[in-house]
């Protein structure tokens, strides 16, 4: 690194000893090119073979269930009295009515709310950590975010039950139940979800915040922009696609979450994921066995719609923050 860039040595053909190169190329320099070609071209012909196992696995493991969901959602359950296997839209209409509709709406509400709060809280935390002088704090928070973002499911539920549940330590210490607190509610579930959603946001938004260049801030300063003005007119518009991407990711995580809610709230907060699990374990009326598949289809449609908002925007952010 300290030496000046040396000129590229003469090609191997000029060196009679041949070096590590194959003897054939050393003795016949003009032939070197044609022999190099096939080695380059061969992978182009056969490389796709390496993708075959993955694609085959995906077709069977993912394709078949997908087909099962779609066909099942539109056919009469096999346990129905008549017409099993024939086409129907009854499953789908049932799945967006009554208790199921309530559950879907409540799932979407919970996910949207927690994703929004997670986004709003995650950005200042990430920014506070990133601009901190303490390297150690930065590393610690980022590592902790990595751990906590993966800390979903049952352990999270039990940790919160131990903290804020009816017999939880904080509940007992501050007599929270007397003040109307209950973990087994919409609010309680939202507080719990934020425990893994906020770290997820910190992880997601950190690269984008790191991509904000100091020069942009200086330029804004030189034009007498205040800090709020800088954020409002420069930073946030650039960050917007990343923020939306983070929101979509958080929404997806909250929407798909099942274990936490199952272990914590039971049936007090209706959620679509729990309804599907119930339907799968046979807690439905006779003849509605395929309802679970229709509910799954609803869930996938919601997730696809949310993702569809995000994907076109992803490219825009890549332009600025590369």
């Amino acid at each position, binding site marked *: 690194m300290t030496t000046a860039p040396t000129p590229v040595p003469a090609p191997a053909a000029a060196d009679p000893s041949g070096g590590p190169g194959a003897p054939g190329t050393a003795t016949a320099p003009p032939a070197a090119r044609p022999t190099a070609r096939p080695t380059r071209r061969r992978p182009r012909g056969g490389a796709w073979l390496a993708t075959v196992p993955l694609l085959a696995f995906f077709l069977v493991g993912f394709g078949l269930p997908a087909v099962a*969901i779609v066909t099942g959602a539109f056919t009469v359950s096999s346990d129905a009295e008549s017409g099993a296997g024939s086409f129907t839209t009854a499953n789908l209409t049932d799945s967006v009515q009554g208790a199921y509709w309530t559950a879907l709406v409540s799932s979407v509400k919970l996910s949207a709310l927690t994703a929004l709060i997670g986004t709003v809280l995650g950005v200042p935390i990430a920014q506070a950590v990133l601009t901190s002088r303490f390297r150690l704090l930065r590393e610690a928070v980022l590592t902790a975010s990595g751990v906590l973002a993966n800390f979903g499911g049952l352990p999270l539920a039990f940790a919160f039950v131990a903290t804020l549940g009816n017999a939880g330590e904080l509940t007992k210490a501050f007599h929270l139940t007397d003040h109307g607190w209950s973990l087994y509610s919409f609010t309680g579930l939202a507080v719990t979800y934020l425990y893994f959603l906020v770290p997820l946001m910190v992880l997601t938004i950190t690269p984008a915040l790191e991509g904000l260049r100091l020069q942009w801030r200086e330029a804004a300063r030189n034009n007498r922009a205040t800090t709020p003005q800088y954020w409002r007119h420069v930073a946030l518009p650039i960050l917007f696609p990343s923020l939306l991407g983070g929101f979509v990711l958080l929404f997806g995580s909250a929407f798909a979450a*099942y274990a936490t809610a199952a272990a914590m709230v039971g049936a007090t907060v209706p959620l679509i994921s729990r309804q599907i699990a119930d339907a799968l374990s046979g807690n439905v009326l006779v003849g509605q066995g395929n309802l679970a598949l229709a509910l799954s289809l609803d869930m996938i449609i919601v997730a696809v719609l949310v993702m569809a908002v995000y994907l076109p925007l992803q490219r825009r952010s890549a332009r600025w923050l590369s």
Partner: protein
Amino acid sequence: MAQLNPRPRLWRWAVLLPAGLYFLVPMAASVWFSIDDADGISFDAYTGLLSAPGFTDSLVLTLELAAVTVVVLLLLLVPAMIAVRIGAPKLRPVLEVVCTLPLVVPPVALTAGLIGVLRWGPDHLMDTPFFQTFVFVQQPEFPLVLVIAYVLMALPLAHRALDSGLRAVDVRTLVEAARNCGASWPRAVVSAIVPNLRGALLNAAFLTLALVLGEFTTASILGYQPFAVWIYSVGNSRGQMSVAVSVLSLLITWVLLLLLAAAGRERRHQTAATS
């Protein structure tokens, strides 16, 4: 930055202090809850774990599932991703779609679909050889159907981890260099690319491991009892023990991630020194 922001950084503490409280208090409370006893402090919840019925069985099953999932996932994904980089760029969008689609199918929905497929077995394929496959996939000692589900769920995570790793490596040049030195194709990939991907591979493996260790939805609905499902059943009868397991699982995740960070840092130093 310091000159740009002359005001005292109160906002930073106003942000970090409540956040710190929110994240640390549940951990502290859980630890306290798990050792708090009527007559002082007791570690029974932790010491009793090993002798609890089902603990070892479910833990072993989960670790086996995790190991098989990681191996299958990497064996499927790594060759495909490398191939797309060096020889089949046209398949790249296909690969990206394949690795993104599982994101829009929540685990519950995937499970519903899997159950739908598994039901075809007894319904339509009773007399065909395929039926044996269905039985084999669902055997209670080692439910392969869970491995299928976990590989699918981990695909997006692992893809992202490996993609960022591959982006930092000039795959084509490395392979061509190895090929020019006379290495065969598999050899070039294994000895030139894979070592450069160590960090990304570890990262992908860790994310998959964390996913499998904590996965509850699919296993519980399909009726198997890996570790997460076992914790759930314990939680119903012995609350303290379930919290103890939660604390332990958090600790294990920490340790794994710290190991990973250490491995990654080593890697970064090496690449920084060579570039």
